[in-house]
């Protein structure tokens, strides 16, 4: 089945790119293609100047890609072991250093480090998934709906992390349904529909465009939740 | 305000499809078998009988493995129960000589009953734990047959079993059995077809896909599995009766673990969950070793290789789960359903 049609997209160093689109638009498929889980039928993918289409996901990860997949997919191992799986040696920081960073971000994980991740609540699992992706000290981080199932207070935290990471030079591709915040945080936005690119542009301009508002942000001008 | 979830139902979207041309095409197979079969020399005819027998066994096992998604590695136990029913109830062993039709029913029912007996304690086990327990059950039955010398004559087996008579017709030559087996195949085929299309089939599929969610949807998974086990065992038992009538000799050697594996192979190679798959699988798995006879010492080596190659080529079986009259019509009718 053909899911994506001739998409061209670019992410610059330290940039936060957001991909939006209705369900089934192909956002997840796009991320999976970038990280090599799905093979692109045609076209090229370049990462840090190198052609990477056809590389396996683990090869991508070792080149500095991080992917926090849709649906969490934590391992039924202890939290700490989940972090071990995500650690990629030889990318600068030591395991302990990275692990402590993750625990600092999500203290609950540190508290339960020896508990099986399979027994965490949905939102806690999401934290594990993000933490695990960070363990590879990625230069490009793909986040597939990271705020899914998280309490508002944690969502805020996630977006703060995204900002922090971007500050430190990590490029981020963010797939989100939480468009209000995404548009704030993102630099550049791609809108996808039925597997093809519909519109792209700087986030601020996107947010301001009435047509985009109509399609993606109905009721944004309405009441805020707080 | 009326609960909208209880609004009167609208008529179904899908109109009743015209299935009967496809069904008719499929009926051609047994008819063809009945016409061509008796003209075959005895050896191919006997092979054909074996193919049919294994196809029926496959159809039976498919209910458990293909529909309900439970791996049964001890199916041969039910087959053995059927076979020994005929051997004990129609031979000089106890000098009981019951009519074939009666034993066919009794043997199959006994097997079905054994299925329930086995099912009650073990059906709450999952996956491989269930598989190993069924394997154990198969072995227990075989060892019992081998040990209860006073009843089953132990390893010596029971020889000179009666010739079967069905409604005044003697079953002795391979073509006699061809008629019987084709008849059974059609009946069993319709039986499983009916299961598949019914609420029971839906329930079984749900159990296969996700038992927990199925329970959440109100399905008494244990009961449903039990029913599947019983039906499946019933068919296995019936096959056993026919096998014993064909061989007129039974011994525990015919009911080893390997036999269970062959039946599992039949349905997996043919296509899990599809009745046509069992037919094709049986054809291949019975024919293959016979065709390879010419290779003498290398026969089993090639057989193993062929198995691996077939499975690698079609990991989901030769015939897709969805294959059936409606599927056929869709294909023939140019994609419109």
């Amino acid at each position: 089945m053909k899911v994506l049609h001739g998409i061209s997209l670019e992410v610059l160093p330290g940039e936060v790119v957001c991909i939006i689109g209705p369900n089934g638009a192909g956002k997840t498929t796009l991320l999976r293609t970038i990280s090599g889980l799905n093979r692109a039928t045609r076209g090229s993918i370049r990462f840090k100047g190198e052609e990477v289409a056809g590389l396996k996901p683990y090869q991508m990860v070792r080149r500095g890609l991080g992917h926090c997949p849709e649906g969490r997919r934590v391992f039924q191992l202890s939290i700490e072991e989940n972090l071990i799986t995500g650690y990629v040696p030889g990318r600068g920081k030591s395991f302990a250093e990275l692990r402590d960073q993750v625990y600092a971000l999500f203290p609950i994980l540190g508290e339960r480090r020896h508990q099986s991740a399979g027994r965490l609540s949905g939102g806690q699992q999401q934290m594990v998934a993000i933490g695990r992706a960070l363990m590879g000290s990625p230069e490009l981080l793909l986040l597939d709906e990271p705020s899914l199932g998280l309490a508002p207070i944690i969502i805020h935290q996630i977006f703060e992390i995204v900002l922090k990471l971007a500050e430190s030079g990590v490029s981020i591709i963010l797939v989100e349904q939480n468009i209000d915040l995404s548009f704030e945080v993102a630099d550049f936005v791609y809108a996808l529909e039925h597997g093809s690119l519909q519109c792209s542009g700087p986030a601020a301009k996107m947010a301001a465009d009435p047509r985009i508002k109509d399609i993606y942000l109905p009721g944004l001008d309405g009441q805020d939740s707080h | 305000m009326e609960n909208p979830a209880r609004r009167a139902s609208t008529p179904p979207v899908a109109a009743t499809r015209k299935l009967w041309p496809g069904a008719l095409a499929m009926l051609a197979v047994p008819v063809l078998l009945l016409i061509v079969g008796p003209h075959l020399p005895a050896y191919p005819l006997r092979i054909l009988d074996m193919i049919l027998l294994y196809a029926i066994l496959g159809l039976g096992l498919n209910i458990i493995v293909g529909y309900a998604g439970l791996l049964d590695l001890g199916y041969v136990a039910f087959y053995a129960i059927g076979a020994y029913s005929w051997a004990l109830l129609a031979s000089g062993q106890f000098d009981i000589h019951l009519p074939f039709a009666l034993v066919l029913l009794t043997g199959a029912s006994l097997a079905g009953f054994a299925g329930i007996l086995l099912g009650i304690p073990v059906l709450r086990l999952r996956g491989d734990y269930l598989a190993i327990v069924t394997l154990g059950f198969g072995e227990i039955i075989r060892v019992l047959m081998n040990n209860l010398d006073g009843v089953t004559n132990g390893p010596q087996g029971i020889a000179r079993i009666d010739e079967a008579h069905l409604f005044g017709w003697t079953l002795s030559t391979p073509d006699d059995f061809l008629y019987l087996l084709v008849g059974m195949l059609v009946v069993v085929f319709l039986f499983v077809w009916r299961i598949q299309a019914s609420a029971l089939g839906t329930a079984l599929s749900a159990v296969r896909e996700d038992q927990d969610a199925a329970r959440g949807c109100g399905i008494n998974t244990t009961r449903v599995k039990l029913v599947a086990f019983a039906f499946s065992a019933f068919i296995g038992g019936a096959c056993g009766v026919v096998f014993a009538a064909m061989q007129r000799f039974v011994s525990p050697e015919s009911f080893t673990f390997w036999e269970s594996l062959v039946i599992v192979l039949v349905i997996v190679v043919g296509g899990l969950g599809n009745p046509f798959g069992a037919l094709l699988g049986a054809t291949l798995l019975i024919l293959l070793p016979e065709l390879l006879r010419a290779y003498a010492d290398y026969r089993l080596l090639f057989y193993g290789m062929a198995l691996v190659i077939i499975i690698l080529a079609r990991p989901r079986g030769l015939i897709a789960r969805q294959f059936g009259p409606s599927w056929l019509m869709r294909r023939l009718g140019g994609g419109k359903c």
Partner: protein
Amino acid sequence: MLKFDHVTKQFGELAAIDDVTFEVKPGIITAVIGPNGAGKSTLVNMAAGSYGVTSGRILVGDTELQKLPKYRIAHAGLSRTYQNIRLFDGMSVVKNLEVALVPPRVGSLIANTFGLSGRAAAEERRARCHAVLERLGLAAYAERQAGSLAYGQQKLVELARAIVAEPRVLLLDEPAAGLNHGETEQLKQHILALRAPDLAMVLIEHDMKLIMSISDTIVVMNRGRVLAQGTASEIRTNTEVQEAYLGQPGAIKDIEAAARGRRNRVRIREGEGLTWHQP
């Protein structure tokens, strides 16, 4: 209609639910919110029979659910959706729904399979499923394999499966998670349309906009206990709830400010305008 009566759930040391008592009334939508790990899903799982109850009672009418096996709970009129989708992936969408309509008794199941009335009953089941699919706008997907649908569609199919048996109690565990604004809006309409005098609905969500606009009463959980209960406006202003869950009203502003600050500094692809790739 659905009543939690001093319910406790212990996972080893952890009291995931700690002496919770509240009632869900029919005809209205009760929202349950709370931080991650508060115990919301655990409540649903206990009511639906997926988890045992350590102590306390869960009642639908006079029926004590915690004593029933899981499938009987469904027969008692309770159905649910899952936080992590649990569809029957290999089956078609209608078949997924039909599962919920399988006759409860094995006897009738067998009679249905081989009896004469079977066909009519099957037609009726199909019709009911199609009607529900129609209502949720899923009719086009009826024959698709459930597992091949996109996430959002799968969530709707789960909802359809949960309502096809016409339950008395409906528990929705994060139905809007992963849906975009438009879809959430649609979902909201579907949920509102389901509201009926004899149906008790529980909605677990993190989407505050949805919760605030749809629920008649809100239960806030925290660390296995009920932290607060009330209407949307009561909850919104409850400082305890803000602290544990919603976050300070200013938090969003802070993020926005930080983002703006960064954008002003970094200015990546500033100059570009909007490109429309498709008319």
